[in-house]
């Protein structure tokens, strides 16, 4: 019996085809090969059943193990960016795989090792852009982002600079100052109740803060889609705006912005990045804990809490939101522990809803389904990115989706205003 021959073209590429992109591929493989090999050689695959995308598609191409194995295969000259480009779209950047990796869990501290998969996906997407293998949906999205300065958020408010502060109507927020609150695009143009809630809570607690003169997107989503140069340009604009008003402290209510400011920006600017970045939910937790913000109005709801991936899995923030929920009078809180929630996700991150909205919708459907089993009336999240797909799934299953800030604001006796959702007809992935 003959052993199988590779199909024509299978092994013909050579590791680095001399077509001008070879150097880019070589750099990419050299940068990530040892990290990839830590996964490839252990072969545990414990990451798979916690991966929100894999749980839906059940396709081995979409697994963290494949994302690493492809780099080894690329080094062998078996595959190229074009062969795997669609696979790397299948990631929300939630980071569950990194936490569940036995290499990270049991030997990571000793060897100063953490399996890095989210960064690998971002790096591959950047290689896809540089080698002409970008995804059409993401390209259009980033083109519109660059044109408007903000994400092409779907909703009723036009995405234009002149409307970027519409959400704050009537709040009389100043411009500039030592402390700036950065408002996420989704929360500025779509879920405005989110921004109004946190802003009014901070005002009520006596926190002085201002808004940017001209607020662009944080650049994080573009970076996640592989558009490194564009993301960098947004970062430079925002940092220049902060400096121009003498800002020292940036409040980031949105977990995605917080990741950009604490992970992407320091990489861009190195030592020349002087800002203190404060996470909204932690600041709020402190204010309540210190008695500067009293939660006195009962909220008669039975809720469970969705751990946003970028808080829980990426940043280890899971206590502060729970403490806030427990501080709300009248609330019945049915908790699911944060480790169990490693395998939960809304599907809203990493650009997935732009390219694969049906997968995002199914991830959210399953997440809401788990909440519904707890016999609650409300699923509380703490990330506006998650709340659009979760709310869509909640509509299907008769469960309301609220943001934590909105709930806390009610308990603080604040009439929030704004809108949590656009009319159903305009619903779509962002």
């Amino acid at each position: 019996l003959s052993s199988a021959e590779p199909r024509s073209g299978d092994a013909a590429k050579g590791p680095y085809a001399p077509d001008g992109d070879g150097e880019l591929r070589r750099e990419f493989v050299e940068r990530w090969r040892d990290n990839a090999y830590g996964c490839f050689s252990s072969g545990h695959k414990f990451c798979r059943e916690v991966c929100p995308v894999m749980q839906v598609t059940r396709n081995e191409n979409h697994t963290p193990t494949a994302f690493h194995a492809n780099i080894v295969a690329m080094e062998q000259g078996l595959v190229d960016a074009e062969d795997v480009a669609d696979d790397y779209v299948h990631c929300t950047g939630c980071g569950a795989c990194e936490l569940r990796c036995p290499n990270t869990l049991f030997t990571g501290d000793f060897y100063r090792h953490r399996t890095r998969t989210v960064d690998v996906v971002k790096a591959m997407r950047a290689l896809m852009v540089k080698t002409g293998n970008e995804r059409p949906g993401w390209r259009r999205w980033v083109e519109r982002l660059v044109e408007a300065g903000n994400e092409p958020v779907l909703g009723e408010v036009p995405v234009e600079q002149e409307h970027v502060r519409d959400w704050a109507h009537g709040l009389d927020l100043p411009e500039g100052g030592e402390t700036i609150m950065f408002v996420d695009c989704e929360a500025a143009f779509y879920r405005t109740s989110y921004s109004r809630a946190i802003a009014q809570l901070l005002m009520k607690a006596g926190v002085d803060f201002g808004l940017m003169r001209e607020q662009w997107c944080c650049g994080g989503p573009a970076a996640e889609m592989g558009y490194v140069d564009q993301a960098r340009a947004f970062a430079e604009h925002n940092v220049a705006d902060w400096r121009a008003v003498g800002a020292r402290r940036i409040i980031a209510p949105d977990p995605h912005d917080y990741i950009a400011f604490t992970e992407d920006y320091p990489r861009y600017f190195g030592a020349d990045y002087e800002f203190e970045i404060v996470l909204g939910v932690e600041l709020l937790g402190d204010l309540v804990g210190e008695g500067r913000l009293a939660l006195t109005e009962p909220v008669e709801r039975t809720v469970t809490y969705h751990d946003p991936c970028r808080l829980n899995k990426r940043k280890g923030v899971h206590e502060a939101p729970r403490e806030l929920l427990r501080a709300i009078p009248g609330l019945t809180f049915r908790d699911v522990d944060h480790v169990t929630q490693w395998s939960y996700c809304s599907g809203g991150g990493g650009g997935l809803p732009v390219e694969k909205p049906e997968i995002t919708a199914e991830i959210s459907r399953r997440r809401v389904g788990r909440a519904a089993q707890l016999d609650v009336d409300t699923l509380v999240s703490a990330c506006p990115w998650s709340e659009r797909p979760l709310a869509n799934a909640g509509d299907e299953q008769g469960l309301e989706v609220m943001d934590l800030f909105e709930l806390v604001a009610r308990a603080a006796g604040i009439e929030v205003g704004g809108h949590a959702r656009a009319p159903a007809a305009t619903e779509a992935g962002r």
Partner: protein
Amino acid sequence: MSAVAFKSAIDDAVLDELRSIIGDERRLLPNLSSRVNRTRVPAPFPVHRWAEHMPDVAVLPVSAEEVAAVVRLANRRGIPVVPRAGGTGLSDGAVPLRGGILVDVKLMNQIHEIDLEDRTVTVGPGINMLKLNEQLRPHGVFYPDDPASYPCSLVGGRIGTGGWSLLGARFGHTRDLVVSMQVVLPTGEIAHVGEGGGRKLRKSSTGLTLKHLFTGHQGTLGITTEATLELAPRPELEFAAFFAFDDYMKAHRTTGALTRSGLATLAGVVLFDEWKIAYLRRDDEAYIPQPDDVRSVVAVAAYGTRGEVEAAAERIMKLGRLDDGRYLGDEISQGDWASRHDRYATPLHGRDLEGQAVPMSWHCEDAALNYSVLPRVREEWHAIVERYRREYGIFDDWGMFAYTSGAGKPWGDYLVEIDVGIWEQRLDEDGWRAWVSCKREISEVSLNHGGSITACHGATREGDAELVPREMGSSWPVALAIKRALDPNNVMNPGKQSFDEAYR
């Protein structure tokens, strides 16, 4: 007589036919990355010959009917079919050796029925045990198949490989836990196999007992498309105790005493040898450091009702200490047992001949051996690995475990493993040949001591496969006759276990 087709047999006409069967482009995957990523399992892999192991096309069926239609097509055209579930096996069951159509069952992960009256759960082969148990938990029952790969392996692969469970001494192993199943035969018929004609019966004397024929065949006799599994009551109490010894033989004797104790709640006993302890000491994060006089460890677990386990724990604490055993405390006992799936193999622990950390691939070579030969086999196995380690500089000895293996009768034989680190980045053809040769020598030792090449991983790849006829001896012609009768065209996972002999 030889009837195995090659990759070239897959052409556009075959793809069109597959397309008409599957009917969904997202589940018919002829693209390169889909093939590259269904080529290997965690077993050592000849990276330099990756392309040789790729399937030509992968399909993700959602029903037994789709699987059957694909297999009928393959059988008619003489195209190899390779079933794949999690792809987490430690031998090559799910690795294509001759290309062909890879049938990936991961989408068949539904729970079809939970029957709390007759205590069964019926599932698709693509479901993972951890996920299954999450759904079973509210009902007070669980499916007790508990391998090291518990968080990632899938029911179909467990059945195909004939998996072994850490809790097998108490609850049985995969084959004991499958009550009945639906199998697509190599010629494409769908058959239901169980005890007699029963779907939820644990014992029958009608006809032949076919169920065991379809567990542990390494994907060579068919593809399981549905399985009815045992439901056990969730234990009220789990007890684990780890004992340290300054001498392997004391630990060996203690293992024997524990397994002969007659405790019905005994779920498993694990014996760590001195190489394993030394390996774990390489990183004090992974294993709380033990004094140098600790040379061996015995871990024991009991599962059951509170009254039973509390009484058993008292007996275990006495037996564990009889031969100078020292209890390692609640933290290690409970912590290490709780993390038993994750704990004991990491590529970061690899060391080259100079003791430098290098990323090594973990390989676990297993055998089924009787209690009496464990000390001798241990010496011979370590000597083999040491010889290859010194000669090639790409291997590393990560020590041995022996685990109780008899379901409900843990006293006589053991799943024995030697963990070997392999520096795959340095693997070339010479290194690969050396590994195959090392593997063969390890297996030969097992046979020389009246053991079996493998207790659960499967004897599928060279280094093992050529020894299968010798191990099977006078029953080998029977196995060949069965293979030939069920798979006349040798399309079902060809090239494994020396079954090609059936067609010569």
